[in-house]
Structure formats: structure tokens, C-alpha cells
């Protein structure tokens, strides 16, 4: 499906910020493999909790937080520039 009304806000290769015509705020494109990795990290963190491995769980959560923050910063940067 090709929608010419989708506006690309950022120029980055990953975490591209786009504006969909029917939405008020832009969104962030997450590549499928990256999304799967984020999900895998959540599962891993949960597994560490179940195993009582708090230290590893904390490491995994920090890793996950940093990756998510990357997307968030990319979004903030793009929307700030577009204002």
C-alpha cells in the first residue's frame, strides 16, 4: 500500500519519523528486526526475574531503556526540527 500523503520528517535510516495524514502526532518507524529485539529483551528481563537473577535483569532493562531512549530522542529531535 502506497500512501503519498505520508510525510517523512527525519532523514535517519532507522527510527525514521513520519507523519501519517490521519494522525495528529508523528510516529517512529521501527524496523522489524529491531522490534523483535526489543521484544526479546523484555522476555529476557522477565526470565531473569523468574530465575531470581536480579543483576542480569537490571542489565537487560538498562539495555532496553537505552534502545528505547534512542527512538525517543530520535522522535524528539525530528519533531523539534519540524516545528
Amino acid at each position, binding site marked *: 500500500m502506497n500512501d503519498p500523503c505520508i510525510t517523512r520528517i527525519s*532523514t*535517519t*535510516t*532507522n*527510527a*525514521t519519523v513520519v507523519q501519517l495524514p490521519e494522525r495528529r502526532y508523528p510516529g517512529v518507524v521501527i*524496523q*522489524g*528486526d*529491531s*522490534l*523483535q*529485539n526489543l521484544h*526479546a*529483551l523484555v*522476555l*529476557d528481563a522477565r*526470565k*531473569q526475574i523468574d*530465575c531470581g*537473577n536480579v*543483576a*542480569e535483569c537490571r*542489565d*537487560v532493562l*538498562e*539495555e532496553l531503556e*537505552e*534502545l528505547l*531512549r*534512542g*527512538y*525517543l*530522542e*530520535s522522535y524528539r529531535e525530528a519533531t523539534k526540527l519540524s516545528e
Partner: protein
Amino acid sequence: MNPAKNADEPTFGQGFVTGLWNNGVSIVVAVGVVAAGAALVAVAVPVAVVTAPVVVGGGVVAAAGAAAYGGYQTGLAASQLATGAEVNQLGVATGRQLTPAELGEKAADVTVGGAMIGAGAASALRGRWAAQAAAGAEAQGAAGTWRSWLPRRKTPNKPGSQGNRAPANPSDPTSYGGENPDPWTPPPGSSQPGVSPGAGPGGGAGAKGVLSKEDQLRIQRFANTYDTDVHVVGSRAKGTAGPKSDYDYILGESGGNSRLRQKARGELPRGNAGGEIHPTRGETGIDVFNEPVDPSRPHITIRPNHLGGQ
């Protein structure tokens, strides 16, 4: 009975001695060839026993049998060619001289025997390859050397740090190493440490799915330092890397632990674009996935090699 032939016919004693000599030649040649076949089998067996005994078992037996039979036939034929005297299948001299036509047949026997030896060796090698395939197909690119055949080392994960998730589906777009059709845009922070100098436009480090020597060395150094397998996956392993392609990695058997992945992000080669997004530096050019390697998808494995002193 032809009197002339009787005159040339050797005595029992001469025939006995010739037979002994021929047997000696046959046995020496056969034993030598069988030993070679056995050596090849010996190479195949350790891998076979560990990984795929059923698959390789047949290959080993076939290899030993083919090598032994080929060696014996070759020995018989070679000794008769050398002396011109006929020797039966038991290796005993009959006392009759071979005709030129028969000598030609013996020469053919040598060829057939050689083919049997080759078949034995081939079977042994097939056994080894079959075992390797059963253990998990490996791309024979940068790591396609004898190092790939070294015993696997287990990634020093913390206990229970990895789940047993199923490998990524090859037809699933969420599988690692997805291509990005976007035009080239220099990313912020592209000069940060870790960027491969050879990975310029055109995918210098992986346009053909083969890593550059520099990248190989860096990955090898990482594998040695942290005693872990490093799997290069995605476009760099597929041979479809472009100027904006990132480097996709999986550590160990199932992705390694968090600290190891963090080390990888800082020390392994990376591309000029794509990859994970760093909160302050933007695109990192590197993805380190927390999942097992899918053996059905292209990947290049680099294993620790402490013998090389790197």
C-alpha cells in the same frame, strides 16, 4: 598341453616365491591405502560421534570398506603390472605370464582401485561435512577455515540468562538483518570509534558477503577476548550489504548476556548508518540481537582462536 609353455612355466618353488613377493606388494600397498582411508575415517569419527552418529555412521563404514577394497584391488593389479605374472584374487601366483591385453585390464583395475580409494576418502569427508551440517550449517565466508571446525565454545552467559526461543522465521520480516531502502544519509556520529575504515560506499567490508580482513581481525579479537562465538548475520553475511548497511551480530549460542552485548556495541566493526539508535549519537551502524542464530539464514561465524595468538 603346450610344450613351449611348459618350458616357461615356473616350478612350484618359483611360483611360491613369486606369490609371496606379490602378496607382499599387494598387502603393503593395500595396508598403506587402508591406513590412509582409516586416517580419513579417524578425522570424520570425532565429529560424527559428537554431532550426528547416525548420519555419519554409514559414511564411515562405507569409507572404510571402499578404501580397503580399493587398496586391495590396486595392490593386486599393481604387482601384476610390475612383474607381468598372474596373481589370483587371494594374492597367490598362478605361474602364468599375462598377455598384453590382460596387462591392459590390470591397468584398468588400478584405475578402478584408485577410484574406490577416492570413493572411500570422499565418503569419509562427506561424513565430516554431514556432521558439520547436522551441527548447524555455517557460512564458509570469513570463518570458512579450519577454525570453523574447532569444537564449539559455550558463551560465558550468566546462569539462565537466555531463553530457548525459537530461531527467527526466514520469511518473517522481523527476522534480523532487514534491508533498508532509504537513500544514503551521513548519520550523526559516523566518525565515532568502531567505524570500519573500509566500509565506505559500496559496502567495502561486505559487498560480496565476505568481511574485510580488518573486520575479520577485529571480530576475531573480540571472540578471543570474551571467549565467545560471534555470528555476523543480515546483509553482511548475505552479501547484499550496501553503503548504508549496518552490521548485525549475534553472540554465542543465543545472544550472549547484556554486558557482553554492550561490549560488542563498543568494540565490533560497525557501518556508517542504520543499526540501533543511541540516545545521543543517533544511528550506531550496529545491531546486536538477543536471540539464537537461525542456521537456515546466512551467517558467518567467527570462533575464539587462542592458537593464533591474536
